[in-house]
């Protein structure tokens, strides 16, 4: 076996062992998200997910990807490019024993980290009925000033998930950055 093939085999066997069906790491922009959205649709259809599961996966995928564009602390600005919001992060989808898991990770600054922790700890304390109720209330409320997603993004993910959203924040580095990890079970 030559080297190139061995590298691929190592990589693929790792991906398979971890049940990964989709993975992306790099910069996120609206164009990249739209292209990935297409790929994710095809991929989960190919994986055999039923229509309702496909829709929930797609919805949570978009919310996560757009969160990265909005909240990741690591941005890339191309010279002379009007598309200023290229933000760094990672997403992956895994399929284990018939369950789909959506994961995302991106660096956040201390302010954002604190808000995410509050928001997610609160959501994790709610039952699915309470989540639906809060969704309805938020839909009818004024948009919070610090939110680009109208405050509905995490509620939408929590509503569509079959288990409470899981998250971790790494200890802050010297410059105040943490890594934010989120996992949704569909």
């Amino acid at each position: 076996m030559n080297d190139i093939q061995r590298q691929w085999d190592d990589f693929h066997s790792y991906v398979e062992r971890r049940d990964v069906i989709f993975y992306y790491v790099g910069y996120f922009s609206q164009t990249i998200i739209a292209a990935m959205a297409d790929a994710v649709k095809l991929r989960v259809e190919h994986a055999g997910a039923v229509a309702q599961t496909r829709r929930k996966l797609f919805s949570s995928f978009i919310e996560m990807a757009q969160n990265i564009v909005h909240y990741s602390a690591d941005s890339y600005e191309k010279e002379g490019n009007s598309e200023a919001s290229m933000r760094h992060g990672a997403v992956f989808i895994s399929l284990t024993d018939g369950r789909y898991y959506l994961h995302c990770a991106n660096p956040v600054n201390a302010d954002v980290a604190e808000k995410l922790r509050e928001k997610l700890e609160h959501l994790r304390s709610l039952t699915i009925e309470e989540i639906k109720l809060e969704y309805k209330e938020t839909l009818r409320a004024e948009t919070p000033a610090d939110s680009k997603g109208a405050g509905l993004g995490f509620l939408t993910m929590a509503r569509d998930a079959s288990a409470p959203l899981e998250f971790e924040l790494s200890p802050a580095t010297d410059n105040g950055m943490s890594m934010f990890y989120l996992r949704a079970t569909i």
Partner: protein
Amino acid sequence: MDNLFIAASPSSPEVDFRFDERRLSLKGESYPENAAQFWGDIIVALRRFLAEDGDTAPVAVNVALAYFNSSSTKMLFSLFGALNDKAKSGTEVVLNWYHDEDDDTIFEFGQELREDFPDLVFNDHAVKSL
């Protein structure tokens, strides 16, 4: 006033507001980068039409959105709010709400609209999946 047409993009729906025919249609998926701006501009045009409109003939609104993200959801709520105000003032506004027959999320959002905007004539249309 001029009709409003915006062609669909990979992440935004086709908007076909034929004000002269009193027929407003939305079709496709909505997760634009900045939903507040995308829908904000549309709502401004809609409100202008509704304010300037002297005719009392019915207005038909056909919505066939297969997916909308959380920030679009919020904006759609204000769009239907504007239409409900028009209906309250005496013009019949018919909302035809199309969704895939097994899409509970979009069906349920339609039910939220029906609840909050009782002045709209709400017709739910479950479309058979392909």
